[in-house]
């Protein structure tokens, strides 16, 4: 029978996660936790699969903050069903390099085991996030467009 995750646990988890408080986060992670973030790792360096507690702590403590600092984290929806939690969130952050503000939607699908997070899948509006990260529209037409400052041979 699947355990029932409490709203209090979910709230405590997000309080630690959104504030990058690894001291509070560490005891809430299973040793075998995996955290997968879907997205282009060459633009959003924190994307990919992070396995094990040290890797997930590194993700929260180093990888994500190297890209942006969270300014606000608003939960639009929290859905709890047994040992599974799904949340829909709006994240706003400021780029660590350049200070540009980014804001995008983020969905989490979490699974808990004995009160600890054992699995997380993050799905973001990755096209929108990548464009904001780069500061310009992505080339969807496969053509090279000269930007101001480019050197073009004629």
């Amino acid at each position, binding site marked *: *029978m*699947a355990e*029932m995750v409490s709203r209090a646990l979910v709230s405590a988890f997000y309080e630690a996660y959104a504030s990058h408080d690894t001291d509070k986060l560490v005891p809430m992670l299973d040793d075998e936790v995996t955290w997968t973030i*879907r*997205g*282009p790792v*060459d*633009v959003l360096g924190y994307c990919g699969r992070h396995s094990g507690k040290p890797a997930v702590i590194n993700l929260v403590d180093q990888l994500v903050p190297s890209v942006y600092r969270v300014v606000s984290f608003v939960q*639009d*929806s*929290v*859905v*709890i*069903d*047994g040992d*599974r*939690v*799904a949340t*829909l969130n709006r994240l706003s952050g400021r780029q660590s*390099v*350049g200070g540009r503000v980014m804001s995008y*939607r983020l*969905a989490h*699908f979490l699974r808990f085991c004995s009160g600890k997070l054992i699995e997380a*899948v993050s*799905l*973001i*509006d*990755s*096209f*929108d*996030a*990548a464009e904001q990260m*780069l500061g310009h529209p*992505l*080339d*969807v*037409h*496969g053509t090279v467009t000269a930007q101001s400052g480019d*050197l073009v*041979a004629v």
Partner: protein
Amino acid sequence: MDKKVAVLSAEPQPCARSKSHADLRAAFDVFFEAYAARDAERVAPFLHDDVVWTVSGPIEVLPFCGVHRGKADVLALIGRKVPAVLRVFSCVAEAIVVDGDQVAMLTRLSARRPADGRVISYRVANFFRFVEGKIIENLSLLDSFDAVEQVVGHPLTQPTLAEDGSLVPAISDLVSL
């Protein structure tokens, strides 16, 4: 014609859930079968007249993205607008989470482009809200970067950026000194 596959996650654990939870889960399972098959006729009874259906993503590449309001618009989206861009042949639910009047779902979609038959596969998160047994609200959050790359058929990745945001020259780049 591709055989359409709809795969549900494992049956929900009985535990201490209410009858309403079981009822919503049962109803959702029937909806999912119809939705996975993109069968607008079978989906229709599950939609509230005032349903709002939002699909995240770049509308210039995925024209079905945006906000769709009302039952007729949403049925047109499912039955016509999406199939014009992508013909879904597999919809595998990796997680279904039911709580009160809300259902969240993580799926792996596989589809073919009508233009050339190219297969595209990406993940989608759905957040549904029900009123009186019908869907009144849905947000579909796509792994849009992955989806767009596959639809347009080429990488969207930009040249490598250094830590300070400057471009890192690649072999064959022309650099002024």
